[in-house]
């Protein structure tokens, strides 16, 4: 099955993501009491090898951490992937008002807290626009407990290209650098397109 998105549909995804991000940024700003620089999501069709490279980076170098979380709702399934630069940890701790020491355990704690908030806010925003309710699985920290190569190898057989929404988060005055990737499965894209066509009409 090949993934196809028309220009109109793509614009629509862009618009939905923009609105969702606006809402998410507003929520984050209120919860964390900071100014979130409103990110412009990028809508892309990415290939498995692109993802493999991003994940391999998280696996081999020690300066990136990643969290992934599955979501599913009304036949639309996918995974949210949050990739952090480890240099962000001290500022993340400030942001989340975390006071413990920043050892492995402290970083895990931060990763989980931040990813719950960032992924949750964004998924909820998109779900509301499309009138979908997503169930979310438990987050999994990649590169610390999984052999990423194994994960991606298995994934390679299931899809070659898929729809990705990329969001780069930045927070004013803090050195926080993280990317949120929402990846939809190939068969979900057809259903998403239907949903979007409904909005377009």
């Amino acid at each position: 099955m090949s993934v196809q998105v028309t220009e109109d549909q793509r614009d629509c995804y862009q618009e939905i993501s923009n609105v969702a991000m606006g809402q998410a940024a507003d929520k984050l700003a209120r919860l964390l009491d900071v100014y979130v620089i409103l990110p412009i999501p990028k809508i892309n069709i990415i290939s498995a090898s692109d993802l493999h490279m991003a994940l391999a980076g998280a696996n081999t170098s020690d300066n990136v951490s990643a969290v992934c979380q599955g979501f599913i709702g009304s036949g639309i399934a996918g995974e949210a992937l949050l990739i952090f630069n480890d240099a962000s940890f001290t500022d993340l701790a400030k942001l989340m008002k975390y006071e413990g020491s920043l050892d492995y355990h402290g970083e895990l704690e931060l990763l989980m807290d931040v990813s719950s908030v960032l992924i949750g806010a964004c998924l909820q925003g998109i779900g509301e626009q499309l009138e979908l309710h997503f169930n979310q699985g438990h987050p999994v920290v990649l590169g610390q407990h999984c052999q990423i190569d194994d994960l991606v190898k298995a994934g390679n057989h299931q899809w070659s290209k898929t729809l990705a929404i990329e969001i780069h988060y930045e927070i004013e005055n803090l050195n926080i650098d993280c990317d949120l990737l929402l990846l939809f499965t190939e068969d979900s894209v057809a259903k998403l397109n239907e949903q979007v066509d409904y909005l377009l009409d």
Partner: protein
Amino acid sequence: MSKSGLEFTEMHWLMDVLQNIDIGLVILDRDYKIQLWNGFMENHSGLRPDQVHDKPLFDSFSNIPADWFKQKAEPVFELKTRTFTIWEQRPYLFKFKNYRPITGRAEHMYQNTSIIPLESIDGSVKHICVIIYDVTDIAVKQQDLAKVNSSVAISLDTPSEDTPSEDTPSEDTLSENTDSTDDVTNLASTTDALTKLMTTDQWQKNLAEECNHSSGSLILIEIDQPEDTDVDQQDDIISKLALLLRRASRQLDIVGRLQHNHFAIFLVDAQAKTAVNFAERVRSKFAETAINGDLFTVSAGVAELKQGNNDHLGLYSNAEKALRHAQGNGKNKTTLYQT
């Protein structure tokens, strides 16, 4: 199906299921007072719903750190999003016994939790539901894997009196894979536990294969003076160098730890000049990296494998000659093997 569409009997069934399902459900109000408590919670905690109803969670379960839990729960109230905790963060939220008290190895139940918002009629969130999943089996398997894989250095935040030491994987449980499963043994025999680089066997195999169809350059690196230091310090030095090499090399390069402090990197398709630059970069970077306050150096030997030549053993011995030359001429140097 909407709530109003549920017939009375269906509602009754649903209640029965929620009461009996093997997942813990707790509903809390804004002041963290327990409002509802299903059968799972009742049976595992030994507290009846009427014993906990309207009592603050942190009073009934004093070992739940209030600040920690509130940090997870506040976004649920404020943002109406879900939050999650996993057993790697804290092994459990509620300290329950292992569901398999006879054959299970863990002392307590490992738990993942989801915290979900419950909207009131006016759309605000005044209550949250904490859902408790029993993940003991997963946690125990994961910890076994971690012991062997050694890449995991998690310190479980468990009260010390009930933590059997083997439950806490640490960096100390490194190379020995005594109680491993088959998968794990396989992994452990190809990857060096301390450095996550290839082991000697694996490295040689990959090199021989790569030499058959591509050219490249081999770099051998040795740490100059690790003998004067104690074992922990040596491990730190070796890990640091391995980290530098992992960061500097590309995905396709073949990087291995061949002996105690002897590392080898085959740079695929790289000419001698590139390889010398690579080695110099690693050497100078390492020389300025303080490890526990001390500075150390490495020496490197480089040899190039020309296109069409697949003599990997010759290549190795050339690189070794270059390395010995660098070590014999004052160390902290890179030498290129010249034919």
